[in-house]
């Protein structure tokens, strides 16, 4: 009877999880989704906790309190730090799966070897492989995003890297297969930690060659891995709730990764094994091109005269924390009856949807945040395109230059606007190290300086001009 109630509760919990994700389809209902998710999780925890098999409560209480104590500050990080928080939580997810898998293996080894069937051993091996590689891989990603000193930001490559990585994984998988076939062999308890160690190492090596521009895809892939490791745990523990919830997470990560890859015109394998950012410097010194600088005064005058302004934000806006100044600029332009839209490229920033969250934080209505495909047809009518810390996503080389590493990537057609202002911190190339042709177009004017300071200056010019202080 208890079993029936438990299963029934798990079914309700699954349904609520599906509703939670369903309600995310529009910002209007999205918060309801959070409540559904919380309800589902609460049901799952309580029903599991009251099971007759759970008899020690002290450790559970302590672990849950500790988790809550760490979770609350993690939920209150600045929104610019959301990518690294997300990576960190993938690491936690992977760790949990890996540890439960290990615990179950050693438990059954000593207390019921008949439980270690082939199918279940395969599930355990998958769980620890995915769990532990997600753990270290996500820690590496979080470190890179947080710009931790001893983790290199730039892609690290060396000869034979892919060979070594794939070879390592093949060895880990091979040893795992040997374990799955002989789970109770005398050497098995010794081999198990070796497999764990190899997958921990593989996670590090996998992320080492990945640069910042690829982070949105990599975070999405790690998201899928974290979900799939929960699925594997479900197979190990014979628990369908784990399988369904893990599958929802896994498919979410998969879809996001596909969207990110499409937005960069690259494949999974290319992202994971392509070591982007190394292809630079091919054409350095070809010809000396000159930037045309503009002053904030001049730019403000042009902005005032326009009727449609499209702002194109990129990671540089997040770095400079310029989103609040951008809002002030938005307000100044709106006050003059100028239409202002934001053009959002899917891979702008360091994780999917990064720009939307930053702009929403700055109180810009989400109805003015427009996707790339929706805004591009309007770009020829646009009077001013203002590029704030974006680079590759507006580089016309993606359309024209077959030798460019970003050739074929869909871009926001900033170059089609009547006037382009690009805010840039320095005269050096962007993160991917690729020269941006947009900056040398005869309709482009450069505003050099920190994005926050430059936009602040524009706002000052505009508010001064209209007699407001």
């Amino acid at each position, binding site marked *: 009877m208890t079993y029936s109630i438990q299963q029934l509760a798990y079914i309700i919990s699954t349904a609520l999880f599906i509703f939670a994700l369903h309600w995310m389809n529009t910002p209007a209902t999205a918060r309801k989704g959070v409540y559904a998710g*919380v309800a589902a999780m609460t049901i799952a925890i309580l029903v599991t906790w009251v099971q007759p098999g759970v008899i020690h409560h002290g450790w559970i209480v302590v672990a849950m309190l500790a988790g809550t104590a760490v979770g609350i500050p993690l939920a209150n990080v600045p929104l610019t730090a959301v990518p690294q928080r997300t990576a960190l939580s993938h690491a936690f997810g992977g760790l949990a799966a890996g540890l439960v898998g290990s615990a179950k293996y050693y438990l059954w080894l000593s207390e019921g070897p008949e439980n270690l069937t082939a199918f279940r051993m395969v599930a355990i091996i998958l769980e620890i492989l995915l769990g532990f590689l997600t753990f270290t891989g996500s820690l590496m990603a979080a470190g890179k995003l947080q710009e931790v000193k001893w983790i290199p930001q730039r892609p690290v490559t060396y000869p034979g890297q892919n060979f070594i990585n794939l070879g390592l994984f093949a060895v880990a998988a091979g040893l795992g297969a040997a374990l799955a076939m002989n789970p109770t062999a005398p050497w098995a308890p010794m081999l198990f930690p070796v497999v764990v160690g190899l997958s921990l190492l593989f996670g590090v090596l996998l992320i080492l060659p990945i640069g910042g521009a690829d982070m949105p895809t990599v975070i999405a892939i790690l998201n899928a891995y974290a979900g799939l490791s929960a699925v594997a745990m479900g197979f190990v*523990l014979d628990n369908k709730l784990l399988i369904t919830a893990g599958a929802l997470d896994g498919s979410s990560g998969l879809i996001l990764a596909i969207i990110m890859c499409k937005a960069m015109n690259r494949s999974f394998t290319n992202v994971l094994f392509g070591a982007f950012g190394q292809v630079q410097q091919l054409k350095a010194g070809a010809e000396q091109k000159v930037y045309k600088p503009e002053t904030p005064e001049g730019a403000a005058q042009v902005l005032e005269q326009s009727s449609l302004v499209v702002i194109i934000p990129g990671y540089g806006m997040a770095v400079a924390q310029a989103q609040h100044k951008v809002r002030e600029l938005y307000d100044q332009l709106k006050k003059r009856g100028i239409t202002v839209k934001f053009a959002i490229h899917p891979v702008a920033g360091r994780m999917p949807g990064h720009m939307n969250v930053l702009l929403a934080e700055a109180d810009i209505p989400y109805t003015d945040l427009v996707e790339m495909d929706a805004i591009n047809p309007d770009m020829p009518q646009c009077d001013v395109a203002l590029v704030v810390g974006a680079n590759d996503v507006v580089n016309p080389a993606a359309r024209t230059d077959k030798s460019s590493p970003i050739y074929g990537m869909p871009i926001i057609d900033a170059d089609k606007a009547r006037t382009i202002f690009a805010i840039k911190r320095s005269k050096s190339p962007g993160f991917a190290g690729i020269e941006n042709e947009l900056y040398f177009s005869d309709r482009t004017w450069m505003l050099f300086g920190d994005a926050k300071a430059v936009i602040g200056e524009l706002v000052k010019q505009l508010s001064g001009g209209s007699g407001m202080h």
Partner: protein
Amino acid sequence: MPRSLITRAGFVLLSLAWAPAAWAAVPADSTVATHAPVGVDFWSLLFVFVLASFIGLGVIRRVSRLLHTPLMSITNAISAIAVVGSIIVTGADYPPTIRALGGVALFASMTNIVSGFLITDRMLKMFKTDEKRGEGGHA
């Protein structure tokens, strides 16, 4: 509104319809799920996995692109359903070393649940339309 009411009613009916089925399907003596029986039906688990993945793909595909960051944080929280496995391992009558592993896993899952849901809600609160702007004031 009426549409969401219908959905809700349908969901409740569906749950009720399943209850007796679940009751009837399970023999009364299978009370403890911590020690799963050896003869687990893995095919039905695979079945569930495949179907859940298709549901996931269908639902996630329609999530607003505006909300991809909150989507990622809410799925973080949802995949922390690993908490279920962690509770079983931590609380069962197992050797202390095994339970300690479960305890760490439980800590990690709980961190994800708390921070995942809280930060999702925090971000979603910020998404406003033009009319609603100003009502809540600036953060």
